[in-house]
């Protein structure tokens, strides 16, 4: 086992599931598409001069006067759905990943702190974490948004606040197991500084399960943000994520103009699905490893 690069081994185990591999490729494609959205979309759907309200609510495949095809139709304002979806993907991903990373940092810190110091800190913190964990994230986000109000930053704060507990719990659990191991004891005997022990010795060994949590939680964050935006309490209309696009198209479904809601939904679905499949596979690989 020492002759194989651990990353190579991880990759080959991951590749064992063809479905997970396919999901990973799809996810990477989506990420690249969303990053390149300003370049590859036929139009900029949020530039008022680019869109034509007379061309609103057109079904997929209609030709535009400007020479490109509305592959996925247009919404009520005349925006090309394909472009709107690409931009929306970018926002959904950005919000999901940003909140995920900050929740990860905060949760990891609290978890490590609680595990390392133990005693009353640990008890109090974990009591609070357990209490919050017994409430669904969506309720916590909704309540926070009631008090904080509207705005992108407030949404991200609400997402972070509802998610950090998952990271904290796993971080603390892993840290507690690791702290009992000999390398920590020897580090303490060598009188290394607390900082060194925690950051350089303890932290890297706690990462594998947290990476699994992060993958799955980013999927949850994206879904949660979409739900909040759909309900009208999420991102403002200047930052139209996929959730808002779906919400916009809601009323037009009754008139048979299904594409305004359906395609953003499919994009959202594929995004979340691929993240979940990849996360599932990662969890299957990394968990038995931990038991060794």
């Amino acid at each position: 086992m020492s002759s194989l690069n651990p990353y190579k081994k991880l990759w080959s185990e991951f590749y064992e599931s063809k479905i997970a591999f396919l999901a990973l490729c799809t996810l990477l494609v989506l990420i690249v598409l969303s990053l390149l959205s300003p370049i590859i979309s036929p139009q900029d759907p949020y530039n008022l001069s680019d869109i034509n309200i007379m061309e609103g609510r057109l079904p997929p495949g209609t030709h535009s006067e400007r020479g490109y095809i509305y592959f996925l139709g247009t919404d009520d304002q005349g925006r090309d759905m394909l472009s709107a979806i690409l931009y929306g993907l970018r926002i959904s991903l950005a919000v999901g990943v940003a909140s995920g990373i900050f929740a990860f940092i905060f949760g990891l810190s609290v978890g490590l702190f609680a595990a390392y110091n133990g005693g009353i800190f640990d008890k109090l913190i974990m009591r609070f974490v357990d209490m919050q964990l017994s409430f669904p994230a969506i309720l916590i986000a909704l309540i926070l948004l009631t008090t904080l109000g509207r705005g992108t930053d407030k949404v991200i704060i609400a997402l972070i606040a509802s998610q950090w507990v998952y990271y904290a719990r796993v971080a603390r659990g892993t840290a507690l197991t690791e702290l009992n191991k000999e390398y920590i004891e020897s580090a303490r005997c060598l009188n290394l500084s607390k900082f060194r022990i925690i950051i350089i010795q303890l932290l890297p060994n706690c990462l594998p399960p947290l990476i699994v949590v992060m993958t799955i939680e980013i999927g949850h964050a994206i879904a949660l943000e979409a739900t909040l935006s759909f309900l009208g309490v999420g991102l403002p209309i200047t930052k139209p994520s996929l959730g808002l696009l779906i919400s916009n198209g809601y009323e037009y479904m009754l008139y048979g103009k299904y594409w305004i809601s359906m395609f953003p939904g499919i994009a959202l679905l594929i995004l979340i699905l691929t993240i979940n499949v990849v996360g599932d596979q990662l969890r299957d690989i990394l968990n038995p490893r931990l038991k060794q």
Partner: protein
Amino acid sequence: MLVFIINRIIQSMIVIFLTSIVIFAGIFAIGNPVDLLLDSRATFEEMEQIKANLGLDKPFWEQYYIFLKSSVNGDFGHSYIYNVPAMQLIFQRLPATLELAFISLILSIIIGIPVGVVAGIYSKNIFSKCVMFLSVLGFSLPSFWVGLMLIMVFSISFGWLPSFGRGETISLFGIEWSIFTLDGLKHIIMPALNLSLFGIAFVIRLSRAGIIEIIHQDYIKFAHAKGLKNSRVMFVYILKNIMIPIVTVLGMEFGLILAFAVVTETVFAWPGIGKLLIDSINLLDRPVVVSYIMMTVFIFLIINLIVDLIYSVLDPRVRIIIND
């Protein structure tokens, strides 16, 4: 056992008390709800008058004390919009949400457990692999979008089912039920299915994992070695063991169902407390939001207590811990 219950009740009361402080601080102390109620041309005096009427000019602790006193009597303030006691609004709408939630829970049990168990017994099968993939789909599908698609297919394209609202109700024991009327059933089936999707996925995965773990245990082999019928081994020896983790998850699942009801009720215009919550958030009707939260916390605590009690009935090993 009685000591255990009393202990839990005391713990729960502490939780409610702490939550109420946090909620109160969060919702009432931040921001100025008066702004919404008046248009921008209101004079300063008018604003002060409204503030005084609503008791918003008093210091924080006094406001909290008044809140506490009246909430013990069940009075959580009046809705800013409807001008009736906020808790009353909640109680009016609660039966609709509970009905939806229970039907969803039952759906997740009657679909989830059998499918999960079969997938566990024949775990190398293609059926099992399909089921696992579909269950990942179950978590990944954003529930509001599924609701929209359901409406599109069954209401708009086929015209079989109504797309919004609650159907006809019948009054039983003083509560309105819609599941006993055909019209009510037609109205409830889509939202209940929508709401139960993630629950079905959960229960399938859990049942399958439970079966795979239990079926290879020595005590199951011994049960076969005793010459018991397969049906007895399945329904008594295996199932009783598997119910333990499932019941715990069901408790958590019911909580999630209540939370996601907010979304489903919005999509299907179901007149429950979820829809009431969203409307109140949008209209900044804070007393209603507070009442919703307190009611939800209360329901969650009860669910946890019931799950623990059921758990101790199912698993005799836990009873010793409780009785000590």
